[in-house]
């Protein structure tokens, strides 16, 4: 088991290294460098620009640039955003916190809805037609853009527009609730479909048929279904949670929710190199960390994995 954990951790480190290489190449491949935008600033002397270039190692070889940049990044200096006029690390901190909050709330809604759709109504009988063949494929075909706009439209009609700022805990929660609702609808459909596919296999297993035929109540049967699903469920939650880190960008745009996806989008549209590279590093780093955590949790949830060695 220790070797498995070690293997997973070393893989995550390798991915982080590749990620840093990719992010660095991106910053080099994007047209212009840090000084391009600043050149327009009044009061920027050529000497300052030169010093700035030097401080980011832009006058050295590519390898030196990479390690110099990595040195900065590891010490938490992610550069300066000329568009937002703030250090990138500042921006990233607040946005990342909001996105994680949004993703967590979305994941809770998603997991609740999909568990109801799959465990409480397991795939059997007429439900296969109703849920598997009609409801889920339809919801999955609706583009996220449309879901988000429709939820926005419902919000416009359901709530009264306030012309003043309210900052109560409730309105704060509402800011998170609507976008996460828009995100949770397609995700819940996707998760329910995956779970139902998996459950269909479990329904045929001997132990479940035995439990059913000895007259176990519905709650007991749900537990019988859920336990063997746990590793699969954890993996699924991990995949969906990571997809939410950047995938929330559509909902964030529609609801003007200042999260990491919107930050990345604005960095692309404003050609804000440092900001883009930093958001990519942070978001992908977070995703790699989540995947590692899920991998370790799965080892905990599936005792069979603990006995086996690295495959």
């Amino acid at each position: 088991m220790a070797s498995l954990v070690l293997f997973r951790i070393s893989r995550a480190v390798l991915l982080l290294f590749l990620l840093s290489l990719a992010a660095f190449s991106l910053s080099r491949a994007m047209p212009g460098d840090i000084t391009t935008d600043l050149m327009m600033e009044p009061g920027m002397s050529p000497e300052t620009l030169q010093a700035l270039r030097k401080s980011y190692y832009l006058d050295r070889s590519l390898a030196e640039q990479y390690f110099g940049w990595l040195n900065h990044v590891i010490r938490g200096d992610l550069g300066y955003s000329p568009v937002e006029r703030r250090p990138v690390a500042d921006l990233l901190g607040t946005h990342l916190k909001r996105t994680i909050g949004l993703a967590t709330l979305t994941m809770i809604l998603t997991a609740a809805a999909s568990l109801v759709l799959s465990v409480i109504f397991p795939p059997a009988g007429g439900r296969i037609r109703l849920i598997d063949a009609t409801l889920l494929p339809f919801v999955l075909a609706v583009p996220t853009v449309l879901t988000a706009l429709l939820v926005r439209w419902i919000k416009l009609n359901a709530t009264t527009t306030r012309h003043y700022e309210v900052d109560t805990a409730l309105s704060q929660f509402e800011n998170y609730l609507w976008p996460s609702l828009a995100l949770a609808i397609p995700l819940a459909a996707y998760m329910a479909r995956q779970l139902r596919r998996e459950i269909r296999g479990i329904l045929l297993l001997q132990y479940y048929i035995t439990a059913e035929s000895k007259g176990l109540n519905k709650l007991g049967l749900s537990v019988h279904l859920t336990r063997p699903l746990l590793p699969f469920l954890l993996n699924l939650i991990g995949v969906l949670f990571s997809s939410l880190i950047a995938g929330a960008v559509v909902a964030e745009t529609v609801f003007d929710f200042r999260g990491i996806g919107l930050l990345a989008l604005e960095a692309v549209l404003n050609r804000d190199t440092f900001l883009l590279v930093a958001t990519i590093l942070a978001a992908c780093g977070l995703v790699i960390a989540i995947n590692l955590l899920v991998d370790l949790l799965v080892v905990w949830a599936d005792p069979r994995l603990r006995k086996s060695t690295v495959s």
Partner: protein
Amino acid sequence: MKPALTILAVLYFLAAASRFVSPYPPHYQQRAYAMKPPLYRSEPASHLRFFVIGVDGRHHLFGVSSGVFYLLGSDSFGRDLFSRICFGARVSLTVGLLGTLLTLLIGTAIGLLAASYGRWVDVICVEAINFVLSLPSLLVVLALRALFPLDAGTMEVYLVMVLILALAGWPDIARVVRSKILVIKSEDYTQAAVAIGASKARLLFHHFLPLLIPYWLVQATLLIPSFLLNEVTLSFLGAGIQEPDASWGNILRQGLSVTVLSASPWILMPGLFIIIAVISFSSVGEYLNRRLEPGSGK
């Protein structure tokens, strides 16, 4: 299967013949008639007929000779939504098609490379595949978008989007092609072909590629709708096709404005077309999957 193919044929016809099918040119604005609901007809009585000569002096399938007629309503600039959806279909329905072709090409090439050379080439390819797959795909698409100029013409942006979709989408294909080729390589008939001295080209074209055709077809029906959605997302976010040119994504972008969304919710109409296209593609895909790859399971 048949109804799905018919629907797709109609959608592609709308795209191909958009100049004829749509009653107005896509950029034609009538500001006085902005945000009008579907089936809007201006008074005094306008003559709605088939085969009329439109405002641009061309023949159109249907329309009015005087006054205005909006089949699906108009947007905030007073442009006919149906016409814009038809012209938008040209972008939205073909980006996926070209992107899929390029994705299959790149994915298959890298999968083949990894499977047939083995050793360190294989290791590099597999690591690259795993790396790209471990990243959130939307972020990869956004990052790649940053590499290309933003204020390019519609044609350039269109090609850039095709390229981006392929660059973000190849790893899935490469992974499966690699494992399929590895299986085919160990089959007896391949070993026999090698034993009687078949050349590499013969192995490739007679034993490897033909067996991938069903897989390509099934993947294409999955990739096209997912790329369509990606195009819609990019254009919706303002990183794709730009106004005044239309795509299903940037028509929806107008819905970002609270005023437009609450006063004219029919601006979301392209969404309906997207749903229809996606469902049609996936039902064709399911049919092909059942027929061509039996046992692959669901």
